């Protein structure tokens, strides 16, 4: 048995047997790991609010030879989403970050870029605008996982899309020019592609306080969600809920 410790982001918990919780953590040390928190369901004393989704914790856990699941010994809260008011939109946005991380990250593979991105986005989600951090997060997760196609050329004719109209389709792997777009494609605006370019060049804090029109970046988010969903071959539960909030 080996004891490990790492900063970690709590992604999800599931009830396990009568009183235990199965916890999925995104650790800085070794990426996504699962651990059993003994008696966490019955007695909140030991873990308190530490196992709420998207809490940043310092986790101590034991890796047991021959066991797939680690044993979670303790979690010290470093940063809790409960420190700020949890509005429903904020809860959905936090849930979205947790779901995307849980679905995209492989087990036991450290990913410091994704970890730092998550910390910055969770911090940005303390503010009132959920759409900017969510757009930034989905964009970078698509890029970091290698699923993001080139946004500046048509995937069919290789022609440049800069400044001209561009389209995407749930079953296509990239953007298309007006001549090559498929039936029932959606358009992604020049402004949204410009926003993506800006977001690749600056940290998420650079966009906090930036004026954000209602619906801004909606086409980009739809494109990113479709791209990610095509690769994981399932739908994000939280994507539909975000759409409903956007109205």
């Amino acid at each position, binding site marked *: 048995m080996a004891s490990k410790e790492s900063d970690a982001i709590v992604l*999800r918990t599931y009830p396990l*047997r*009568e*009183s235990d919780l199965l916890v999925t953590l995104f650790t800085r040390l070794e990426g996504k790991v699962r651990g059993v928190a003994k008696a966490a369901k019955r007695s909140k004393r030991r873990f*308190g*609010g*530490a196992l*709420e*989704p*998207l809490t940043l914790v310092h986790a101590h856990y034991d890796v047991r030879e021959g066991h797939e699941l680690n044993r979670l010994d303790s979690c*010290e*809260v470093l940063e*809790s*989403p*409960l*420190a700020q*008011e*949890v*509005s*429903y939109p*904020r*809860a*959905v946005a*936090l*849930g*979205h970050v*947790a*779901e995307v991380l849980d679905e995209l990250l492989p087990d036991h593979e450290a990913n410091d870029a994704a970890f730092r991105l998550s910390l910055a986005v969770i911090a940005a989600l303390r503010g009132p605008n959920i759409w900017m951090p969510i757009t930034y997060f989905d964009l970078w997760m698509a890029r970091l996982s290698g699923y993001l196609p080139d946004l500046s050329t048509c995937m069919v004719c290789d022609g440049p899309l800069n400044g001209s109209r561009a389209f995407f389709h749930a079953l296509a792997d990239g953007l298309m020019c007006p001549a090559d777009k498929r039936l029932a494609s959606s358009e992604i605006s020049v402004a949204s592609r410009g926003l993506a370019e800006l977001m690749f060049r600056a940290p998420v804090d650079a966009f906090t306080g930036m004026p954000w029109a209602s619906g801004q970046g909606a086409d980009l988010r739809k494109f990113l969600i479709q791209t990610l969903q095509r690769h994981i071959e399932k739908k994000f*539960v*939280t994507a*539909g*809920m975000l759409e*409903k909030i956007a109205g």
Partner: protein
Amino acid sequence: MSRFAEPLARLIEELKKLPGIGSKSAQRLAFHILRSSNEDADALAIAVRDVKASLVLCSECNNITDVDPCVYCSSATRNLRQVCVVEEPTNIASIEKTKHFNGVYHVLHGTLSPLHGIGPEQLRISNLMRRVESNQVDEVIIATNPTVEGEATATYLSGRLRRPGLRVTRIAMGIPVGSDIEYADEITMLKAMQGRHDL
């Protein structure tokens, strides 16, 4: 091929579906029932059947009840103008134990839960809104759990309920009685500080 006679194996299989009951416990319970008197076994079977057949949700407050409206909603001595909102019917017992609440309840049967696809449309609040809209309520106390989902539900509800003449309150959060501040985690301590009151 089962090691047990078919009726016994079937009972074990059914018991195993209960929360917290594994194979060993299911076998122990099944043999206990087998050894018990006919009357006891019948009483158990009838109780299981009746719980499904005779219990309904209270049309006023969603509490689980055998009479509609439930004992709280139909009580002559309880204050119908003060409503405490809880997540689950079992939470009512915790509040009743205090013997200091004489209002009535509203049971949500869950919370907003983005990761489970449960949004405002799925929240059972139509009968609560009806009570509030017809000016039957002075105060709504929101007693959902101090979790992300419970907080999101409380914030959402307070927005939906807000209107002149209605007081919407949230139960306090903080240090458990009899514990030690030294062992409080930072978020509990923060909530305790935020929820402080004048002496």
